[in-house]
């Protein structure tokens, strides 16, 4: 019997190694897998490359991981916010590397990795600082920039419900990066509010099919 559910958050993140590339779902705090991040901080992996839209808000979740100095590099679209003080301090001190990418390019680079695409030409960013040094091409009279896929060793995402095959449904705008990060990582770990019996999720409404998910774990109470 296939059972992708994990007994504990601790076990779910136990093999995340130093130097791993880890995608973390969420847009701000919506969809942020805080239970898994807390478990990752306790686990202790260092020198991580993190892929997220932001660079942490306030003092919890991704911000706490950054504060604990576990992050070597962050790939994101919008690091600077009114409450991104932990990132700001380390960035100004030269202790964290930033790869800034337009938000839609970030999403499509993640999607491309999950879909087996070796890169793509996008009009976003053409002629700007963020396209400097990148290959360009004119296609049907329009200018495009070449962008590469972003692969990851692990993805930590948050969903509403999951079953033992790894099928997931999300809640409202907390869905954001979850479905595409699940596709792009070698190992996807989903924290869910509820683990439900197989068959309970409506197959017409499953957003992430279990093929993209390796572990499902219940979030901390």
């Amino acid at each position, binding site marked *: 019997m296939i059972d992708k559910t994990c007994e504990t958050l601790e076990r779910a993140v136990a093999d995340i190694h130093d130097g791993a590339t880890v995608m973390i779902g969420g*847009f*701000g*705090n*919506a*969809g942020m897998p805080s239970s898994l991040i807390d478990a990752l901080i306790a686990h202790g992996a260092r020198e991580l490359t993190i892929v997220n*839209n932001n660079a942490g808000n306030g003092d919890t979740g991704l911000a706490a991981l950054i504060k604990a100095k576990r992050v070597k590099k962050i790939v994101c*679209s*919008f*690091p*600077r*916010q009114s409450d991104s003080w932990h990132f*700001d301090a380390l*960035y*100004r001190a030269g202790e964290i590397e*930033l790869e*800034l*990418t*337009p*938000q*839609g*390019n*970030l*999403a*499509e680079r*993640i*999607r491309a990795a999950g879909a087996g695409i070796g890169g793509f030409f*996008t*009009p*976003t*960013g*053409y*002629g*700007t*600082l*963020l396209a400097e040094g990148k290959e360009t091409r004119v296609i049907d009279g329009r*200018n495009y920039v070449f962008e590469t896929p972003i692969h990851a060793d692990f993805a930590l995402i948050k969903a509403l419900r999951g079953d033992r095959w790894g099928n997931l449904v*999300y*809640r*409202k*705008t*907390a*869905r*954001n*990066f*979850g*479905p*595409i990060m699940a596709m792009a990582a070698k190992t996807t770990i989903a924290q869910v509010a509820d683990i439900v019996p197989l068959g309970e999720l409506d197959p017409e409404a499953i*957003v992430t099919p279990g093929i993209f998910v390796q572990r499902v774990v219940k979030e901390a109470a």
Partner: protein
Amino acid sequence: MSTRFTRDQMAARVAQDIPEGAYVNLGIGLPTKVANYLPPEREVFLHSENGLLGMGPAPAPGEEDEDLINAGKQPVTLLEGGAYFHHADSFAMMRGGHLDICVLGAFQVSQQGDLANWHTGAPDAIPAVGGAMDLAIGAKQVFVMMEHQTKTGESKVVERCTYPLTGLGCVSRIYTDLAVLDVTPAGLRVREMAPGLTLADLQAVTAAPLLPPAE
């Protein structure tokens, strides 16, 4: 003596140009105000790039849901018929040309419609771009809403942008506190001016040549 359009008048003016049935993204800041001036009987689909279509107004106090937010991370509501989707789909809606209109703020817009709105270029600034570049090139029409001049009186409408660019030749119309300008192949054409303002007055505070209103 001329008067300036207030921020609310600017928002109401932009709202006039948004027809029923349009798929629209309102950027963070001043553009968000446009929603307040869309008449309730006009069905307009508001898109928020974090993953929703059919965005409704802010919830009543106490009704906020941390899983239901807009691109500015503010709590919002979903209208009946609205939908949620993931980020790659959301940006496909932009990049794929499915959005009719997006309304953005700006630091500068050039006479060719180049847009600068993401970065001041200050050496100590931490850069952050978010969806600005995707919005700039994605929608069928890009409307910019901004003050005509900076706080120190410099024109934000320019011949060439001096701030780092967000997108090239992407702006179709500019709404300021002094005028509404169309970006045309011939240059910037004045569409409307604040009451009491002459073309000469407007030109005097605009750092790019202006064409008179079409007859």
